[in-house]
């Protein structure tokens, strides 16, 4: 079925992500992912699902280029990544936002500093983004937690801080690994609405989850991983 949130851009820009016969193995072990062939179109919304240990996180790390494929072709934003330089890798990552399953907030930085981090590393002056960061923090309900260090944030607050950090750069592609794994169903629905709005504003969204109740709330494409292979449920 046609994804409800997919845009109708049949012709135009190259796929945001394109995998062709991609395989991954760690060391001399068996392939944990094999023969992955799929595309993530611009402005699209999809779930990445599968049982625990199926390789969802590995697939996200492949897209993030923190894991390199042992075979096959990966292209991001129309660019073959097999021979990209470190500078090009940085440029590609700046077009992506990522929400890690374990949040990966820096414990020595405040919530505000964590959310502002992607802008700070781009060398932007704080004055140029301060209002924007504060506004986003208020928007995700962390307006009065911006001076707090992550260790004293609740799981849900960390989740929202991690999401805000991913959104602050207005990414073209958002990768979220179990973004609702630590929150109650009500909050999960609200976070999902946040991703939907982001997608409506032009970002391709990939949400890795095995939460069927969450997926059932949206009629979108599902990338299902099992036994190291990918099945696409349109």
């Amino acid at each position, binding site marked *: 079925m046609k994804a409800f949130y997919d845009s109708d851009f049949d012709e135009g820009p190259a796929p945001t992500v394109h995998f062709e016969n991609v395989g991954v193995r760690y060391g001399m072990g068996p392939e944990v992912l094999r023969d992955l062939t799929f595309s993530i179109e611009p402005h699209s919304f999809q779930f990445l699902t599968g049982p625990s240990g199926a390789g969802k996180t590995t697939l996200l790390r492949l897209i993030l280029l923190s894991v390199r494929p042992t075979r096959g072709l990966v292209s991001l934003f129309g660019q073959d990544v097999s021979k990209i330089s470190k500078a090009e890798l*940085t440029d590609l990552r700046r077009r992506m936002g990522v929400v890690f399953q374990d949040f990966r907030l820096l414990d020595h930085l405040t919530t505000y500093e964590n959310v502002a981090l992607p802008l700070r590393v781009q060398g932007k002056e704080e004055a140029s983004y301060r209002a924007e960061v504060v506004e986003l923090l208020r928007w995700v309900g962390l307006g009065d937690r911006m001076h707090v260090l992550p260790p004293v944030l609740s799981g849900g607050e960390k989740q929202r801080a991690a999401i805000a950090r991913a959104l602050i750069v207005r990414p073209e592609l958002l990768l979220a690994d179990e973004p609702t794994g630590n929150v109650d169903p009500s909050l999960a629905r609200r976070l999902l609405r946040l991703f939907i709005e982001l997608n409506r*504003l032009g970002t391709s969204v990939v949400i890795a989850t095995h939460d069927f109740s969450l997926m059932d709330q949206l009629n979108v494409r599902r990338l299902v991983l099992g036994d190291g292979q990918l099945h696409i449920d349109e």
Partner: protein
Amino acid sequence: MSDSPRSPSAHSNGSHPKGASAKATQPGGREPGRLPASLRRNAPLVPVDSAGGRALAAVIAILTFLAALCAGGAELVATSSSQWRSDVAREVTIQVRPQTGRSIDADVDRAASLARQTPGIESAQAFTKAESERLLEPWLGTGLDFGDLPVPRLIVVKLQPDVKPDFGALRQALSAGVPGATLDDHALWASRLSTMANTIIGIGVVLVVLVLVAAGLAVTFATRGAMAGNREVVDVLHFVGANDDYIAREFQRRFFRLGLRGSAMGAGAALALTILLGALAGSWRASPAGDQIEALFGSFGIGWRGYGIVVFIALIVALITALVSRLTVRRFLNETG
């Protein structure tokens, strides 16, 4: 604090989430729109100011202290030897040995006169017989009758500053006019003194270089440790779009501060010790030991140039810390991909 985010639709005006109005009411009911002057605490992105960081600062302080002492000692010897050499080079000695059938007093007067006539000579002061005999007392003892001994007489010749007299012509004139007179221009003594001083200075410089190398190696190990300990931070920085150069700069900034703090402590301690020793030497000056020390090292002060060298070494150590940490981070990132 509510644990739930505000619903996007509750205040979104259909724009990007960040386009949501800043006027929106906060969950806490606080007046929105007003922002603190600065929300950032300028916290470093890489937290190297840990126990390991403090240990590194202590190591750098100790190494800087040692390097500063070596450099200060070398400077002290350089200054003192320069004074010695200057004093030695400004004096020559004419020795007149008694000759059978000749009046030694007349020979001494004649030799002193010949010396005074030589261009570049400031003065020629002959030691009297009694003064010459007194020079022998340390070796032969007091109360002896030197009347039967052929005690040579000395003439101390002082040279004009920055003028080198023609010693060859003076030697010829002395050998022609005063048999038994010899001229000693102290060249051999000055050469040995110079060699000894240069050796001490060279050892001091080598020690300073070795200490700086040791500081560099300590920083290398500390940086690699910090990189390994902050692996997750580095990963996050990469994922949010930081390039290797940015990360290396962050580490460099932190290590430069650590290095500056450590080297300032070390240099401060070295300066304090030098001043203390100078004060102690000053208080001992009246004693025989103080006289010996002053004869050897002058006033036991390294002067402004010495203080400048110590401060310079502290800055060099801090710069080495920054540079080595940056290079180590770049190498570490290249190795680990």
